[in-house]
């Protein structure tokens, strides 16, 4: 209570009240699936007392630590950098650690489900391997013929071409919001194309043609229906659909 003690005596309680974070109760409906029970996935509701500063991840922690220790979900950094806790919250893909509960409609229950289109392993955890496999397929590394003996220089204009797509944290929120990916698991998906974009338009990279050829596939960029779900889902604000469109244009041109 550093603020309280720093203030003149007598006013401490008033300041405490003023600085107090309002707390309220919310109901979370969490999609549960236990592979060992042999049962179908089902919704389970939890009432949680949360503060105005709490995020959905905090509510999930409260459930796991205080009510049901078997609740299973991924999270690591808890601050929107590692991309572990992408989930479907009230029907939209978001990071649980970046979604403030007070920003949701708290008069209604909050629905939390695993992201769609990938196999659910347990509760909110999905098998990310197909997602990473598509990422691996587009060769997400610098391809350069010269030896890394000195710095590879790049102008700010050249850098700006792929600045947006460097922000990807591979949380899979975009790919699992894509209706094409839901019905066709073979589709590369927005995230893989975003990461291909990051290298295709990098002036230091020499593998653009190779990557464009990979994405000029039956399951490549042409499957994109421009529904903009991916752009809306991206917690990093990457203009995903735009990046995909730029890759399409590059394939038509035959060069980045």
């Amino acid at each position, binding site marked *: 209570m550093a603020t309280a003690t720093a203030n003149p005596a007598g006013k401490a309680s008033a300041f405490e009240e003023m600085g107090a974070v309002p707390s309220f109760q919310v109901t979370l409906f969490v999609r549960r699936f236990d*592979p*060992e029970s*042999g049962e179908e996935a089902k919704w389970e509701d939890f009432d949680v007392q949360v503060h105005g500063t709490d995020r959905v991840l905090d509510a999930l922690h409260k459930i796991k630590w205080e009510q049901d220790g078997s609740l299973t979900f991924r999270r690591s950094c808890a601050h929107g950098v590692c991309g572990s806790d992408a989930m479907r919250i009230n029907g939209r893909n978001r990071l649980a650690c970046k979604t403030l509960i007070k920003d949701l409609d708290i008069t209604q229950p909050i629905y939390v489900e695993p992201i769609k289109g*990938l*196999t659910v*392993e347990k509760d909110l955890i999905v*098998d990310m*391997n*197909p997602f990473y*496999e598509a990422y691996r*397929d587009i060769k997400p590394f610098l391809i350069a013929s010269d030896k890394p003996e000195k710095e590879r220089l790049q102008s700010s204009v050249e850098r700006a071409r792929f600045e947006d797509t460097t922000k990807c944290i591979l949380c899979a929120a975009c790919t699992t919001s894509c*209706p*094409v990916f839901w*019905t*066709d*698991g*073979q589709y590369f998906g927005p995230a893989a194309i975003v990461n291909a974009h990051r290298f295709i338009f990098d002036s230091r990279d020499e593998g653009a043609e190779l990557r464009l050829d990979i994405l*000029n*596939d*039956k*399951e*490549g960029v*042409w*499957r994109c*229906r421009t529904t903009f779900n991916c752009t809306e889902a991206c917690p990093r604000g990457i203009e995903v659909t735009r990046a995909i469109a730029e890759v*399409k244009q590059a*394939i*038509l041109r035959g060069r980045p």
Partner: protein
Amino acid sequence: MSIIIETPRSPRSRKSANWEKYGWLYMRASGAVLIVLIFGHLFVNLFTGQGIKGIDFAFVAGKWASPFWQVWDGLMLWLALIHGTNGMRTIVNDYAEREWVRKTLNVSLWVTCAALVALGTLVLFVFDPCVSKDLLSPAMWQQICSAK
């Protein structure tokens, strides 16, 4: 007993040359041309002359007497049918889960498209306006049919 989680997809295989790029390009190009063709068609048919009431056998015969409208309608027929069929193909590819369903739907789509294009083109170029004097105005009969 734990449930074994299968990989939801098999590894991607690089098949023979694919037409998706050309399909995508075709949809954009034909779409742009169709906007002009269809709205031009609607404008000429509905806003010039007597509008909807003026459309009858004679109206169509009059239009198709000119190679300009034969080509216009022919282009519209080909572009629109292939555009629509290709659009349906993408929807089928997106949503048909079983391979035989997908194949069956796609084959029937293209067969239907080919039949309609063939029929339409045939009508467009072998169309004979001079079947009966009752269907054309005397002036038109004079203009189109008297030479034959």
